[in-house]
């Protein structure tokens, strides 16, 4: 009997715990799900800082039509399992008018379905999974789809750098796979021949066997997908083995940490990304300056993406003039705005269309290399 009583007691305690929630009337709430603990915490913190900066800037400028913005942040540990209850909590308990994902693909994709069903606009800041925006018309993305950036990579290698024989080193997750798919799709168009493709897991830091094989392949360029924590060791191991072919990376490399890890080996690495460090745009310059002052470390792509997503959302909410989610959605769809990561506008699927920035590592910093403006090549899918 005692055991049963305890069960009843615990269940009651549990319910009272669930229904905690605070409501504040004088503000507009924006939801933000982001990994702050666990393996993805580094990117999560950066994205959150970027978004916080955008909120601060907007509030200093008078908020949204007189109301201050309140950012409601939940840690989803980049897990789809937790993202679904968090999305429900943001919608129902916190009553957010719109939300942003500062998280990876799995949790973003899972939460997108919930926001779509509830009719709350949701913007993915930097998750790459192609199916995210396919959740429905309330879901948008302010960063490149993997495929689009992969195609840009192919043009960079074939047309800009004039290299023909390429080896792919692909990170085995949705990010690396979709980049590689885009690259291979456009490779023929630029006479790029993919000699070989090797895959590695996100947990790998030792690439000895792959490096040995790439050395034997002797390619003219290496298209290696990855994040700064895999790319740093990879690039330094490639250079240590005496491979001199240029390494082409993507926005996953886009962090000062990459240069710190790879050291001198990082010199000359070229990446496709959305943040131009040498930009003449006042928007980008002021973002970089203010972010570095606020966060105390160098800016990266994820921070810029968090900032951009928030900026797009705030602008749309101002324009909509109400907190009606449907009106906000329509305003987001019509966005045309200069942000730190370029000029943002959405196609019918909610995918962003903007130019790809090419950066090169020189003197221990990312610098302008070129820009890819080919609108047909960079067109994201519309369905």
């Amino acid at each position: 009997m005692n055991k049963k009583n305890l069960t009843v007691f615990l269940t009651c305690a549990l319910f009272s715990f669930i229904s905690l929630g605070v409501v504040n009337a004088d503000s507009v709430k924006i939801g933000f799900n982001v990994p702050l603990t666990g393996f993805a915490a580094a990117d999560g913190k950066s994205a959150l800082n970027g978004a916080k900066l955008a909120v601060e800037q907007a509030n200093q400028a008078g908020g949204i039509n007189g109301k201050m913005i309140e950012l409601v942040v939940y840690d989803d540990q980049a897990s789809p399992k937790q993202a679904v209850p968090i999305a429900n909590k943001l919608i129902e308990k916190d009553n957010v008018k719109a939300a942003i994902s500062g998280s990876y693909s799995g949790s973003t994709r899972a939460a997108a379905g919930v926001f779509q069903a509830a009719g709350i606009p949701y913007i993915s800041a930097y998750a790459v999974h192609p199916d995210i925006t396919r959740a429905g018309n309330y879901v948008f993305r302010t960063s490149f789809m993997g495929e689009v950036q992969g195609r840009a990579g192919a043009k960079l290698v074939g047309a800009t750098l004039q290299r023909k024989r390429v080896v792919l080193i692909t990170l085995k997750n949705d990010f690396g796979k979709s980049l590689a798919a885009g690259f291979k799709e456009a490779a023929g168009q630029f006479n790029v021949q993919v000699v070989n493709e090797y895959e590695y897991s996100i947990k790998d830091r030792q690439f000895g066997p792959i490096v040995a094989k790439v050395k034997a392949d002797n390619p003219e360029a290496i298209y290696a997908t990855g994040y700064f924590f895999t790319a740093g060791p990879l690039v330094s191991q490639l250079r240590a083995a005496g491979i001199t072919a240029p390494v082409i990376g993507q926005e996953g490399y886009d962090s000062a940490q990459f240069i710190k890890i790879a050291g001198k080996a990082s010199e000359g690495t070229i990446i496709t990304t959305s943040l131009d460090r040498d930009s003449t745009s006042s928007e980008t310059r002021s973002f970089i300056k203010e972010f570095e002052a606020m966060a105390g470390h160098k800016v990266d792509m994820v921070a810029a993406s968090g900032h951009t997503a928030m900026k797009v959302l705030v602008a749309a909410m101002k324009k909509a003039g109400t907190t009606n989610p449907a009106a906000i959605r329509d305003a987001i769809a019509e966005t045309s705005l200069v942000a730190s990561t370029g000029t943002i506008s959405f196609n019918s699927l909610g995918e962003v269309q903007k130019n790809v920035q090419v950066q090169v590592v020189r003197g221990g910093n990312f610098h302008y290399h070129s820009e890819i403006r080919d609108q047909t090549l960079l067109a994201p899918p519309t369905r």
Partner: protein
Amino acid sequence: MLFVELLVQGLLQGSIYGLIAVGLTLVYGLLRILHVAHAGLFTLGGYICVILTNQTGSFLLAVLASMLLVGITGMLIYRICYQPILDQPPFVPLIASIGLFIAMEELFRIFFGAYGLSFTELPLQEPLPFLQVSLKQAEWLTMLMSVGFVAILAFLANRTKLGLAWKATVTDPEIASSFGVDIIQVRYLNFFIGSSLAAASGCMMAVLNNLVEPTMGSVPSYKMLAIIVLGGLGNVRGTLIAAILLGIIESYGTIYLDDLLDRDSIAFVFLIIALMIRPQGLFQRT
């Protein structure tokens, strides 16, 4: 040539696995604990090494200090965490150890940041060619260390009084204690040596990658378990051989079995096949 290079890379990977797994198998051999937090000590070793090298400028000093400090931490973990639950069924220390490992990973993140740390001046980077094989000093040192430590352990176990006491305790603690061996002392020593080997492995990993990060123990946390099982649970020499075998299989597998399976699955297919043929592991317990 590629064949040889892949073999060398496999040996190198195997040596890294070996260093950490040998430490674990020492602990297992004596206490039968699946000590997952060993991977947390590996990470701790890496962190101490990077921080001290950056502070003092001496890599050697940092490695020695790291081994000493982590060895002491290992003894503390034994005293505080495991000793009270030694008589429990094996999954109790296992889950306790996993909880401890998660907590350690998070502590590294909270104290040292999610981005991880790198050396300001990366040591041991000069290439040293030897018989057509060109590896960095750090890579040679890693291989030397794993073989060297196992040799030292074998020497200690067979030639010193303490070693004999240790061996006797592993074989049969009751008989050993009736012959006057202080079992508690042997256990502490065991945790000290095992943990400092994990630290050595963490130091070498830090130099090879120029990166220590909170999650750097996540792969070793399960792969080392597979290796000590293959090595015959508690068999030091068997563990080193199993680690090197696994490194070589992974090395060739990453290149030639890439389309079928990923690196982890290749390792575990090998493990499952080996265990189906030899349920006690590839090598007998000593």
